[in-house]
C-alpha cells in the first residue's frame, strides 16, 4: 500500500473528538425522539384500532405507504416547512417510520392476550379501564418491546441520511470523508452508529428482562 491513505488516522480522531461528540449527541437525539413520539402516538392509535377493528387495516396501509417513501424525498419535501438543516426536518419523517412499526406492535401485543385470560378478568369483575391497564397492556409489553427494538435500531441508522440535507448527526462524517477521500471519518461514523444501535438494542433487551420476567421462558416453553 506504500504511502496510500491508512484506514484510520488515530491523531485525527484525537484532534476532532469534541466535534465528534457533538455529532453523536445530535444523532442520539434525532434517533430517539422519533421513537419516543412514535410510542406515545402509537398507543392510543393501536388501542383505537383494537377497539374499532375497521380502523386497523386503513391505518396499517397508510403507515406502510409512508414507510415505503424514500426518506430523502420526505426530508426534501419538508424543508420548506421546517427548514434546512433543522432537527425537526429529520425527526418528523422518522416519527412516521416508527409509527409504521409501533402501531402494528401495539395491536399485535394486545392481540397476544389469550382469550381465556381476558375472559377471566371480566368474570372476576374488572371494569374495562382497569382490565386495559392491569391486564391487557402489561401482557402486551413483550410484543411492544420487540417492535420498539426494531423501531429504535432502524431510526438510529436512518438519521444518517439526514446528512444529505445538512442534519444527519454522525452521517456528516460519511459525507465529510467521502468528499475528501479520507477514510478515517467514515470508519469512525460506521463504528459509532453500529455501537449506538447495539447499545440501544442491548438496553431494550435488558429492560425486557427486568420488566417482564414472566415472558422469558414462555417463548421457550
Amino acid at each position, binding site marked *: 500500500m506504500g504511502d496510500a491513505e491508512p484506514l484510520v488516522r488515530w491523531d485525527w480522531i484525537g484532534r476532532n473528538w469534541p466535534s465528534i461528540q457533538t455529532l453523536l449527541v445530535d444523532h442520539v437525539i434525532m434517533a430517539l425522539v422519533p421513537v419516543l413520539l412514535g410510542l406515545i402516538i402509537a398507543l392510543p392509535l393501536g388501542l383505537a384500532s383494537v377497539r374499532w377493528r375497521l380502523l386497523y387495516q386503513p391505518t396499517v396501509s397508510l403507515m406502510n405507504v409512508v414507510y415505503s417513501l424514500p426518506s430523502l424525498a420526505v426530508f426534501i419535501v419538508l424543508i420548506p416547512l421546517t427548514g434546512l438543516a433543522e432537527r425537526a426536518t429529520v425527526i418528523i419523517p422518522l416519527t412516521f417510520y416508527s409509527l409504521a412499526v409501533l402501531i402494528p406492535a401495539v395491536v399485535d401485543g394486545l392481540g397476544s392476550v*389469550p382469550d*381465556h385470560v381476558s*375472559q377471566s*378478568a371480566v368474570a372476576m*369483575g*374488572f*371494569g374495562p379501564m382497569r382490565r386495559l391497564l392491569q391486564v391487557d397492556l402489561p*401482557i402486551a409489553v413483550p410484543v411492544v418491546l420487540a417492535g420498539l427494538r426494531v423501531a429504535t435500531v432502524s431510526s438510529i441508522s436512518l438519521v444518517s441520511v439526514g446528512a444529505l440535507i445538512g442534519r444527519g448527526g454522525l452521517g456528516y462524517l460519511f459525507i465529510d470523508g467521502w468528499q475528501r477521500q479520507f477514510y478515517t471519518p467514515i470508519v469512525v461514523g460506521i463504528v459509532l452508529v453500529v455501537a449506538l444501535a447495539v447499545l440501544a438494542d442491548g438496553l431494550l433487551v435488558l429492560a425486557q428482562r427486568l420488566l417482564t420476567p414472566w415472558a422469558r421462558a*414462555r417463548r421457550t416453553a
Partner: protein
Amino acid sequence: MITFEGVTKRYGDGTVAVDNLNLQVPTGAITVFVGPSGCGKTTSLRMINRMIDATEGRILLDDQDVRKIDPPTLRRGIGYVIQQSGLFPHRKIVDNVATVPYLLGWDKKKARDRAMELLERVGLDLKMADRYPFQLSGGQQQRVGVARALAADPPVLLMDEPFSAVDPVVRTSLQDELLRLQAELQKTIVFVTHDIDEAIKLGDTVAVFRVGGHLAQVADPSTLLAEPADDFVEGFLGRDRGIRRLSFVSAGDLAVRSEAVVPGWSVALDEDNRPLGWRPDGDGAGLQPFGTVDLKKDSLRAALDAALLAPSGCPIAVDGDGRFAGVVTREALDEALTRATRGPSDG
C-alpha cells in the same frame, strides 16, 4: 339459591343455545350441568354472572334479579374457574390468587395473607407463591384457579369444565380436593362438564341437558342411575350404569360372619388382626390375594370389587383401622346385590 325462570338465549346469528330453561340451583350444594357438546351448558353458566345476558326470562340470585346488579359488583361475589385456568401470566401466583381481594380494595398485606392461606387450602406448596403461572404444571394451575375463585370467599362458584384438560390421575385428585373443600365450605357450586362420571361423582344434583338447552332430567346421581327419564339420558349414562349405581348403595347392610373361614379357605391375620391373605385348605399353596370392605364407609360397589379380587370370592370386612371384622359370604353379597337392583331407589 339460583333460579332460572323461563331463560332463553338466542345469539345474534339466530342460534337458540338455551330454550326456556327453568331450574333451581340449591344453596350450599354442587349442581352439575352435564350434556353433549353444544347443548348450552356454558351459555347457561355464563348467564348467571352476566358474561352473557339472557334474551328472555330472568335469573334470580337469592331472589334478586341478576340484571339489576351492576356486572363488576355481581362478578366479584361469584367465583369463576375455567378449563384453561385463565391465570394472569404476568402476575405471580400469590397475586393471581389475591386478584379479587385487590379489586375489592383490601390492603395488600391482608390480600396476600389470604392468598397464602388459600394456596395452602387447595394443597399447593407455598414455594409456588412467588412463581409465575408458566412455571406450574396444568394440575397446579387449576388448583391456583380454584384458590383464586375462593379468595374473596364468594358464596357462589361457577366452574366450567375446570378439570377437563388434565390427565386422569390429576383429575381424580382435583375432584377429591374439591369435594373435601366443599365439605368445609358449603358453597353454592354450579359445575359444568361433559363427563357423566365426573357429574355423578361430584354432583349433589345433576342436570342433564340435551342439545338446545333443554333439560332432560334433574335428579340426584343415584336416582339418575336408577331411573333415567328417557332413552337419551339412559344412553348418556353409558353401559355400566348398573355397576356405577352400586357406588350409591351403602355396604352397611351386608351380613357378616365373624369366623375367618369359608368353605375351602381361611383368612390369615397378622398379630394386629389385619388380614394378610386367603389361605387355601390343605398344604402347599401360599397366601392368595384378598379385597376388603369397610362396612361403615364403603359402597356395595367396593364390596363387589373386593369379592372379585379374591379367589375365594368373598370380601373381607374390616373396621376403620383396617382390622378384621368378619367375612361376607357369597350368599350375603348376592342377596344385597339383588336387593339393591330390585328394590326401590335408595339414597
